[in-house]
């Protein structure tokens, strides 16, 4: 199972974290510090897997972002590389040529998409189309709710004039 997902920029800024195993707040910061140190210093030609604390960490670099996932010893690393790629492609499909800026300004959407893809540390949906459809459904719900909120505030505003 995947224990956590970590997105780190090249400068070491954390863009996204998602934890599927219990880690206390202190442990989380410690883990993040350790892993960023470990991964950011690795050379280009090295393989994408690191052994860390008895787990394996699979990472992949896309432009200036490092996508890291921590898995158990007996999981298939190559598959996790595929999962990372799957996520990135889904993000790309949603945002359209996604870049780090998109993730910075729309991090909540990034989290929603991740939640549709991975649940409880396991892959949920192998199809990008279905994920896109679900997120689109969520977005329309958000729109509808905004509409409603607007209309209610209009009524209240008029009523209190």
């Amino acid at each position, binding site marked *: 199972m995947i224990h956590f997902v970590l997105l780190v920029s090249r400068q070491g800024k954390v863009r996204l974290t998602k934890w599927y195993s219990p880690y206390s707040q202190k442990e989380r910061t410690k883990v993040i510090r350790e892993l960023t140190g470990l991964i950011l210093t690795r050379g280009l*030609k090295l393989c994408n*897997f690191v052994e860390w604390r008895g787990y394996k960490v699979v990472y992949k670099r896309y432009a200036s972002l490092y996508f890291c996932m921590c898995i158990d010893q007996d999981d*298939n690393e190559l*598959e996790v590389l595929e999962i990372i790629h799957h996520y990135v492609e889904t993000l790309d499909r949603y945002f359209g040529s996604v870049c780090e800026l998109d993730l910075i300004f729309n991090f909540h959407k990034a989290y929603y998409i991740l939640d549709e893809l991975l649940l409880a540390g396991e*892959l*949920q949906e*192998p199809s990008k189309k*279905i994920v896109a459809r679900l997120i689109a459904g969520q977005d329309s719900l958000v729109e509808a709710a905004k509409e409603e909120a607007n209309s209610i505030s209009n009524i209240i505003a008029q009523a209190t004039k």
Partner: protein
Amino acid sequence: MARDLAPEVERLLQFRDPNIRKKAALCSIRIIKKVPDLAENFINPTASLLKEKHHGVLITGIQLCTDLCKISPEALEHFRKKCTEGLVKTLKDVVNSPYAPEYDIAGITDPFLHIRLLRLLRVLGQGDAYASDCMNDILAQVATKTESNKNAGNAILYECVETIMSIEDNGGLRVLAINILGRFLSNRDNNIRYVALNMLTKAIIVDAQAVQRHRTTILECVKDSDASIRKRALELVYLLVNETNVKPLTKELIDYLEVSEQDFKGDLTAKICSIVEKFSPDKIWYIDQMLKVLSQAGNFVKGEVCNALIVVISNAPDLHGYTVRALYRAFQASSEQESLVRVAVWCIGEYGDLLINNTGMLNIEDPLMVTESEAVDVVETAMKRHSSDLTTKSMALIALLKLSSRFPSCSERIREIIIQHKGNFVLELQQRSIEFNSILEKHKDIRSALVERIPVLDEATFSGRKASSVSASPASSLKVPNGTAKPASPLVDLLDLSSDDTPAPSSSTGDFLQDLLGVDLAPSSGPSSTNQATKTGADALLDLLSIGSASVQSSSPGIDIFSLGQDKFPPVTTFDGLASPSSLPAPVAAPILDLLGGLISSPLPPENNGTSPAYPSIVAFESSNLRINFSFSKPPGNPQATEIQATFSNLSQNDYADFIFQAAVPKFLQLHLEPASSNSLPAGGKETVKQTLRVTNSQHGKKSLVMRIRIAYKMNGKDMLEEGQINRFPHGL
């Protein structure tokens, strides 16, 4: 909370919306991990999930099934019986399915589903021949048909290989799997190679032969630029080594050691050392390889490995000359490696004469001209080096002592070197320097006996002790070079006066310290600054040393070092005693026993005063300079104990200073010396020095007392030594 919600989740597993179903499936995984008892409830719903068409639900259902099988054996049985064929069919469908744009990744339809299915089949097939049979076809198909130019394909192949290796044996499939791994190994992608090495490490348990075929490729991986790959490859190589291929493999590894990076050298050295130790076909090869390793990376070699090497060297007497010459050459070439220096210093100390005389030349050697002073140079350099640590310097000191005995011409120069450390801040070095210096100055006669060749160290004992020893301090590493004692062998009663008085000091079966302890030495001068170890074994040693360095005196009372049960001395504490910062354990011990064995028993005029009630006092010893009287009394209640009042009289015209009386008794006696009344004995015999001895005779009634004595004193600044044996104790004591 899990229990409360479990029924809800179960219900949702059959909800109409597939999205809900798949989330419910993953949620169930969490629940059963938290509460394994609830697993049975989920078995049936899961079975229906496995027949889904929707890929998302199918994948999550398969994952739920896999985890169920891991947690609950009944679930495993159930799924094995009912679902194996269904799953095989599903996999077949996916593999043969036409192009589906929704799930397509790199030309393969839904690789995730492939992988999950393969994993579930692995769990089901493990240990079950029937299930494994069902899968054989589809596994073969996947293994052969999947394209491996993209990562997705490789991921599937990887999972397939894992499955093949885990299920019940099928020769053809196994060969297929190993071939795939071989192909992976030569892939340029680092990830693939890493994964392949991983798999091979697991595969080697199953089928070592097949993995051997890829040995060369794996060796190449050891030299890879990627650190993780190097590590994996090295571990794999270590597993691959056997008697047939150890020589070429080691050669490769040592060649690589030269060019490897610093942080990798430590691992590599450790592995090479253990390979060499385990598989070396003959001693000379072992020594050669270890010398090469030491020259290259001596700083990474651990202390225990050096000690093991020394044990092996000492166990190969015909190779002593070769070894010491090789070490000399190696030292000239590269003297920065700590361990190399240590081993070289030890060997030169031990076998220096072989080095000079070119004894024992093997055909492959070139003759080497080394003079005595050059050999001493080597040891001196070792001492002076900045980077030498305490162990090396201590060993160098004792090597110098040995050399001074073997090369008498350099004795003076060696003495000067040793003296330089008299004021060293480190206690160990200071003590050694002072003691050795006094041996060189005052005790030349016993020097050669002290530093005789160490006998063969028993390898089996050493490795057994190494495995069980707790302390790995540098002090304990000193134990080995200085001679470990052997396991308890029949105790030689050295002072059994009824038999011959020549114990073999280097009895290869003898237990040195045990023999020592059989000799109840009780010097009246206590241990000097070496009072640190409180164990009696340590005291034993310290007192031994104070015999050798009579000049080092303190006013501490004489302690009864050997008042231990003679044969109950556990070897471990003995060795810990050896480990205390004192040098010269066994080699000193044996020769000293030799000394005592060779004591001239001067004829003692038995003078029976006849004045004491039951036991007449005797003149124990008389020479032209000294007379010793013994008077006896028995404390009430204990027939075995005797109290002896010893009176020393100076029969010469000069005063005696630094007066020390020592006594040794056979094993069936126990001796306890009280402090003497004074250390100086004025001339003329008017004033006397008195000392009380307490003797306990465990063979009271059967054997009477005997004692050997030694008196050391300074007369006119000259050291004098008198020895004798007292046989004429009154009966009944």
